[in-house]
């Protein structure tokens, strides 16, 4: 395959049959449409290109592409804008996935995060983010190319001409009996459903939305879908709810058992599909087919999964960690009150280690001390003692709590004279002892 332009690689994604041993459906062939194999990594590549193409052809050279997106649409538009030498700006309600935020910055996008809700409510302030953005764009008097994914019919068109016909072609000209899709902008589900119904008016379309007060990237909640201009409840035979837990369960199944590197949206679609299809599977007398969409890739969601399933990332406990200390060990750690510590320091000239953050250390510290931020010291200690046993050590932290822990750990690791400044640098200051810059 030889291409003149990366946009030619958008679309024509594979349709993969999943192993029945994984999903357990006896009478239904379940297919995954692998939209994660689009060049920018998601189903949004199609809509982004379809929407941006005419704007880019028409706009002036310095125009900024702008969209309300916190995820894959922004990513695809950032790349497309970059290819055309245009800046891209993403306005977002809340960028909840840190990796995506970082990635967008790497791609050269500008990101504007809208303010959180007001604590002292102003009942007259009822603008939704989109209205606010429309007004800002109108006020700017040009210079913006707004793709408007939640209302732009081209978002649906991308799937009417691409995703939908591809599925039918790969199923030898037949539409599946069931189509299950997560609802985000409603573009892919609406476009695909339209094509499938043309081939088979009886196709059952299941829309999946997030549980309220839950968060699954790329899926709107049951309330939020009604804010989407492209959303028409009539498209779906039913709307079902999935949770973040479902999404991660599905993600883990597809990743670990099917070799499909899906993100949580695809995981949710799989889980929602299997749950729905199980209710009909047993009653079937002939073979049926079902298709769901794998929207994007897992790599951008490591922190999303880690926050919700820390055990997935389970690692053996590290050596020489303060977490392994007992209360008794910490209580037994040698500690010196400020005045005594000052006398001892004059006597034995210990190594004074300040565990606080660099800015704080630079502002004020004990004369002659070195700054080893506790996290850095923790890293060094995993490998062993970083200090000579022959020189005493005085550890300093804000209130003497962390320093006591590290004194206990150093003692356990065989340091003969590691002491903690009792009450920390705050007690030192309050005792009127010298601090320097």
């Amino acid at each position, binding site marked *: 395959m030889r291409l003149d332009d990366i946009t030619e690689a958008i679309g024509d994604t594979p349709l993969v049959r999943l192993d029945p041993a994984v999903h357990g459906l006896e009478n239904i062939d379940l297919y995954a449409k692998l939209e994660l194999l689009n060049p920018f990594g998601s189903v949004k590549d199609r809509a982004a290109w379809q929407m941006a193409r005419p704007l880019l052809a028409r706009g002036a050279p310095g125009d900024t592409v702008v969209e309300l997106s916190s995820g894959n649409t922004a990513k695809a538009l950032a790349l497309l804008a970059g290819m055309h030498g245009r800046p891209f700006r993403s306005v977002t309600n809340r960028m909840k996935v840190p990796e995506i935020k970082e990635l967008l910055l790497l791609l050269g996008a500008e990101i504007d995060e809208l303010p*959180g809700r007001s*604590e*002292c409510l102003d009942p007259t302030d009822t603008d939704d983010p989109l209205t606010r953005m429309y007004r800002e764009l109108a006020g700017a008097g040009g210079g913006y190319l707004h793709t408007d994914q939640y209302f732009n019919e081209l978002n649906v068109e991308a799937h009417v001409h691409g995703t939908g016909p591809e599925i039918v072609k790969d199923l030898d000209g037949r539409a599946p009996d069931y189509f299950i899709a997560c609802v985000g902008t409603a573009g892919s589900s609406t476009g695909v459903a339209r094509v499938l119904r043309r081939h088979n008016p009886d196709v059952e379309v299941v829309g999946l939305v997030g549980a309220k007060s839950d968060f699954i990237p790329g899926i709107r909640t049951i309330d939020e879908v009604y804010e989407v201009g492209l959303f028409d409840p009539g498209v779906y035979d039913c709307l079902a709810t999935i949770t973040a837990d479902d999404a991660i369960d599905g993600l883990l199944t597809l990743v670990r058992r099917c070799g499909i590197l899906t993100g949580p949206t695809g995981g949710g679609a799989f889980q929602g599909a299997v749950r729905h299809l199980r209710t009909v599977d047993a009653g079937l007398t002939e073979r049926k087919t079902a298709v769901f969409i794998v929207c994007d890739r897992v790599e951008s969601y490591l922190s999303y999964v880690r926050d919700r399933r820390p055990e997935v990332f389970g690692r053996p406990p590290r050596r020489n960690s303060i977490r392994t200390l007992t209360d008794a060990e910490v209580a037994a750690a040698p500690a010196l009150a400020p005045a005594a510590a000052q006398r001892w320091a004059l006597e034995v000239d210990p190594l004074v280690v300040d565990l606080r953050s660099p800015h704080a250390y630079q502002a004020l510290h004990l004369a002659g001390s070195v700054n080893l931020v506790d996290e850095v010291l923790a890293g060094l200690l995993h490998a062993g003692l970083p200090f000579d046993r022959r020189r005493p050590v005085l550890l300093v932290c*804000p209130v003497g709590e962390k320093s006591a822990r590290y004194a206990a750990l150093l003692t356990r690791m065989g340091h003969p004279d590691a002491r903690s400044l009792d009450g920390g640098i705050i007690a030192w200051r309050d005792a009127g002892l010298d601090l320097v810059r």
Partner: protein
Amino acid sequence: MLNLTPRIDPIIQSLLDDRDFLAQLLDALGSPLALVLPQQVTKNVTAFRETYRRHHLSGRLYYAHKANRSSALLRELAAGDTGVDVASLGELQHALGAGFTPDRIVATGPKNREFLWLAARAGATVSADSHDELAELAGIVAGHRLPRVPVSLRLSGFASPGVRLLTRGSRFGTPTGELPDLLDLLEKRADQLALTGVAYHLDTIGLPEKAVALENCLTALDECRTRGLRPRSLDIGGGFGVSYLADRVEWDRYTTELGQAVLGRRAPMTWHGHGYGLRAEGGTLRGSLALYPGYRPVSGAAYLDRLLGTPAPERGRPLGELLLDHMYDLDVEPGRALLDQCGLILARVVSVLRRDDEILVQLDINARDVSLEEHGVLMDPVVLPRAGDRRAGPAGVYLLGNLCLETDLITRRKVYLPVVPRPGDLLAFVNTAGYFMDFSATRALHQPVARKVAVYRTGGVRRWCLDEQYWPVHPRQEVS
């Protein structure tokens, strides 16, 4: 039934269970009647102190007086170790009269010369919003030969790294970029002004914005130090919030259904189809819900705890640890959160009408006496039926106020009650001490403003007195 059941603390519940007591108070003092529970406020102080302790932080808890005009609440707080944030000349006088020493008072908000003079004369800390205000204060101090006044600098307009975090513009505070000008002024006016620290207050429930502001303020404090000043505190304002509702599911269901009602997909739930900020355009829901999030999983002291555990956007270390590393005091100015479960408002049912299949309950109270609606807080009142008669119910009703005004509804939402009230019944609007009690109360139409009563316990007995009669001096507490 779309109930929005309020969270009710056992102390308030025990009052609600004693209908005769409440009915006697109302008979004596009239409807509406406000009850404050001064001893409850110390529980909330303790919760905040616990968060401080967990993060090893020291610093002052300033009660934002504007949340309630009550003397009882203020005096009870004066008896403890909290400070007070006053935002007017009158509030400052009230605080001084309640027993707050000036070192426990911070003056915030818009300030006229008289307010500045009294703060300076007394020696309260002045949280300055601008260069001009600081200059005016210095002029007053010099002109009246007053001692140096402690000042903190309220900053605004913070920059965020990488991602531009937009924040609602504020009319208060000096943009961080102009800090050098403020410091020039402080150097020049060193005989009049003594810097204690910097401050911010953001009107948002969003943690990321507050994290940006807090870290920016740390940088500002570093800048003060490099100029040879000795700031010691960072005041992060208030906005810790309260969770009003008992049940997340009810809140979620209500807001979902409201959207559906606005779209015309279900029967209206509000007076004249009011959408609380939502509107339908071509079958799509537009606008944004102008309601306080009634159910908040993290609020009050727990919200502060969450903020202190949030990593600083730039330096990466949790904000609480950064404050500690730098040995700065953390000052906070909670209002609403300190008054959680500290009061309720009672009203009598005047009449009950049926019009066009709706039940209209006329109350002897108006929307300004219990300004829940104005603040976007939706929660059901508790019905305290008169003994004897049986009640129909449950039912959805509209609560009408006592002003001769079409718009005077206590709430524009249809309220679902377990029984249909009858004339003479009482309605209790619980947990209304923070901002809903007297913030907007008016004597329009010569309707009375609610009298305020303090209810407290001493020697194992419940007692009450008029709010202005309450002093935290209970005989049995004293050791002879």
